[in-house]
Structures are given as structure tokens and as C-alpha cells.
């Protein structure tokens, strides 16, 4: 019980110390340099000041991140299934998957803008590209790592190919899939942000957080930049939080990583 209290108190105490140190650093600076490090209070104030534009930008980025992330999940699941069918297919396609992962977003962005135009579409494609690789690699690994005895059990009972995939390989691959999903969930908001920064557009609803960051920095609104960073962090926490919860729902009954221990 006291241990649980500590788990709550210690991070809270560390946070307070961190904020105190922040203020101490800020007020130890030369007055003309203090604009470089706004205080938490100033950042909060800029939240109020730029609330509307930040919220709109956050929504746009969330939309881009969700669409790219979702697309990556669907396509990677399908491709992983294909790759799991034969090692020949894997050998043939892996180099190109690697290549896809190596594409430098900053160079690809202008090309993408030519292809699909700036704004949401480009953001979605860039997010997709960034999330795709860890998902497809982990899921494929999961699909081909099925326990040999279990495969023989299915053969013994003359299971057909679909039964083997959906009743054995897919559930066995779930822990691997969620490992990939966690990595992708961290990457999705970052991908959307970078996509927006390099290929965003103010057209329509306006840009996302990346685009907003360009505007704030051109206006020298430094507290607002810090606020934008905080919103991005929050978005990342939400993505990861949802995935961690889904993973718990799917695995905690049976998977060893959720083995209950009373410590």
C-alpha cells in the first residue's frame, strides 16, 4: 500500500523539483536572454491566448496521424500475411521494405506535394510511411514464429489454411503485433507533425501543429512554440495510452507479459 503511494508521490515530487529548477534557471539568466526560456506560467498563458489555433492545429494533426496510422495497420496486416506465407516472398520483398523505411521525408515531401498536393493527403502518406515498417516487420515475425507443436496439432486435426491462420497464427502473432503497434503509436504523431512541417498547408481548415510551429517561430512567439510542443507530447501520450490499453485488453488474460505478480 505504501509502495503504491510512493509510486504516485515520487514522480510528483520529481515534477515539482523540475519546475522549481526551471524557474531558478530562468531567473538566473540575463534579462535580455530570458525570452529564450519562457516559464511554465507564460506557456500556460500562451495556451489561453492561442487556444483556438492550437486546438484546430491539434485536431488536424490528430486526423492526419490517425489516418496514416490506421492505413499502416490495415496495409501492414495484409502484407504481413502475404509475407508469412513463404520465405521466398520475404526474401524478395524485404530489401524494398527497408528502402521504403529509408526514404528521407524531407526530400520526399516536395515530390509528394507534386503528386497529391500539400495538406492532409501528404501528411497521411508521410505518417503511413513512418509507421508502416515496424508494424509489418513485427507482425510478420509473429506470424512465422508460431510454436511448431501447435502447427502439428492443427495438421493432426486436418485444419485448413484459413483455420490455421485465424485460429492459430493470428492470435499467436498478437503480442508481436502490439509491440509493433506501440512503436508505431509513438511514431504516428511525430510523423504527422513532420509531414505537416514539410508538406502542410494553410488551405481549408489550416495546417496542423507542424504548420502552426512554422507560423509561431516566424512571429517569434516562443511561449506558443513551447505550448505546441506540449500539445504534441500530449497527443503522443494519448496514442500510446490507447494502444497500451488495447494491448492489455487483448493479452492480459493469457500472455506472460501480463503475469500477475503482487509486488
Amino acid at each position: 500500500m505504501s509502495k503504491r503511494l510512493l509510486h504516485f508521490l515520487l514522480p510528483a515530487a520529481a515534477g515539482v523539483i523540475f519546475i522549481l529548477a526551471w524557474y531558478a534557471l530562468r531567473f538566473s539568466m540575463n534579462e535580455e536572454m530570458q525570452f529564450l526560456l519562457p516559464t511554465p506560467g507564460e506557456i500556460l498563458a500562451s495556451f489561453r491566448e492561442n487556444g483556438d489555433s492550437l486546438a484546430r492545429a491539434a485536431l488536424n494533426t490528430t486526423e492526419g496521424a490517425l489516418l496514416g496510422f490506421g492505413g499502416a495497420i490495415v496495409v501492414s496486416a495484409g502484407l504481413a500475411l502475404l509475407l508469412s506465407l513463404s520465405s521466398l516472398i520475404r526474401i524478395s520483398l524485404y530489401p524494398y521494405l527497408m528502402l521504403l523505411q529509408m526514404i528521407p521525408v524531407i526530400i520526399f515531401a516536395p515530390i509528394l506535394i507534386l503528386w497529391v498536393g500539400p495538406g492532409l493527403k501528404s501528411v497521411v502518406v508521410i505518417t503511413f510511411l513512418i509507421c508502416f515498417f515496424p508494424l509489418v516487420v513485427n507482425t510478420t515475425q509473429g506470424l512465422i514464429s508460431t510454436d511448431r507443436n501447435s502447427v502439428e496439432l492443427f495438421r493432426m486435426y486436418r485444419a485448413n489454411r484459413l483455420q490455421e491462420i485465424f485460429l492459430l497464427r493470428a492470435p499467436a502473432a498478437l503480442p508481436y503485433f502490439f509491440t509493433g503497434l506501440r512503436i508505431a503509436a509513438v511514431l504516428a504523431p511525430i510523423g504527422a507533425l513532420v509531414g505537416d512541417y514539410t508538406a502542410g498547408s494553410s488551405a481549408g481548415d489550416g495546417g496542423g501543429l507542424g504548420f502552426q510551429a512554422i507560423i509561431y517561430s516566424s512571429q517569434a512567439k516562443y511561449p506558443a512554440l513551447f505550448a505546441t510542443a506540449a500539445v504534441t507530447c500530449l497527443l503522443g501520450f494519448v496514442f500510446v495510452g490507447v494502444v497500451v490499453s488495447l494491448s492489455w485488453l487483448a493479452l492480459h488474460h493469457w500472455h506472460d507479459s501480463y503475469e500477475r505478480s503482487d509486488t
Partner: protein
Amino acid sequence: MAATPLVELHDVTKRYGAGPLVLDRVSLAASPGDFISLIGPSGCGKSTLLRLIAGLSPASGGTLQLDGRTPEQAAAELAFVFQEPTLLPWLTVAGNVALPQQLRGLPPAGRAATSRRVLELVRLGDRSAAYPRQLSGGQKMRVSIARALSLSPKILLLDEPFGALDEMTREHLNEELLAIRQQQAWTAFFVTHSVAEAVFLSNRIVVMAPSPGRVHTEVAVPFAYPRTAATRLSREYHDLVAEVSRILRSVESTDA
């Protein structure tokens, strides 16, 4: 015993690819109701033999017939109990036991009833909602046996199912297995390393010799069923265990 053999092997050989001979002209016939233990040193091909009968691996030569058919055709009559419990960790005990019926496309209502019945048989009726990780090693093995019995097989193939368990648990499960057999008439092939287990369970013990794997001797176990814990205390039981151990040692030493 004039019964026609249920399982008949004639000069069965096996080699993997261009490798050495794993099984050399094995001939064996099992009548309905036989409980045959396959025993022998590592590398004598006893597990391979079991896999051939199961149809998990094809024979390289000779003929192998189950009820006059190939193992593939007779798949519905067969059940296999692996060395590991091989339970699917994401399914409950009931889900695991129902799996063979599910794979065969039987209706869910009947599946549940059958699963309940076989779980009662292995005395795990109260654990049907548990997940495998909540069970002890012995309980997992009992679930694995219940699963194998769920399709009422004619032929039960067991590959060292109790090898990883402690002595006490093993003896209990041996007794349970025989008790279940009193109620269900299946024919068993049982691979084991334990002479005591082989003598306790079977009516026939096939001692195999290695490199290449072949049948060395067959020993008949004359004790009547039902056998109980008391059987293990009898003089005859101990004598036969000693006798089979002696044969086994002679097989092993020729291989040194």
C-alpha cells in the same frame, strides 16, 4: 486373439532425405484394445514411429495401415498427445478442449457438452474457465489428454506425455489414464523412457534398438486390468520391471 489388427506395420522404413536410416523394417500389429509402449534408448526412432502412425510424416518404405486405410484416410480415428501440453495460451481450458471439434466444424452446442464430459473424465470439470498459465504442469497435461479424447478416437498416440512431470504426478496420471481407458475403448501407442510406466500401463512393451531404429524384443505384460496403485507393490510387477530394464540395458550397451 484372432481379432484383425487395427494398426498394421509391415517392413516400415524411414529416412529423412538422404540421411541415415531412422527406422529399419519395422513390423508390428496392434489389435483393438492393445496398449503398446514403445521404449528404447534415444535415437531408436520410437517418436518417429509414432509420427508415422499419426500421418505427421510419411514412411519411406513398407506399408502402414490403420483399419485397412492410410494414416491420412484414418485421420478421424487418431488423436495425438504431444510431449508438451501444446495448449493454446489464449484459449481457456474449455476452448482448448473444444478446438479439435471446432476444426472439424462441429456445432458449438455439442462442442460444449463434449468438452464438459471429457474434462470431467480428467477431473478438471471445475477449471474449464481457467487459462493454461493458471494450471500446474500435471493439470495442463490432463487438459491435453482431454482434448485428445474429445473426438472419441479409436487410436491414441502418446509421445512421452508425462516425461516432464514429477514422479508422484506421473504415477497419478498413469492411474487416471488407465481408469479412463476402462470407460473408453481406444488402442494406445505410448512412447516413454520409463520402464516402470511402460510395465504399469501396457499389455505389450516393444523394446527398440538404435542406429538404425528397429524392433528389438517384444515383452508381454500379463497383469489383468484394472490395475491400480496396488499393482505397483506386487512381486510380479517388480520382477517384470527388472526384466525389461535388463533388456533395455543390453540394447543400450550394444550401442556404446
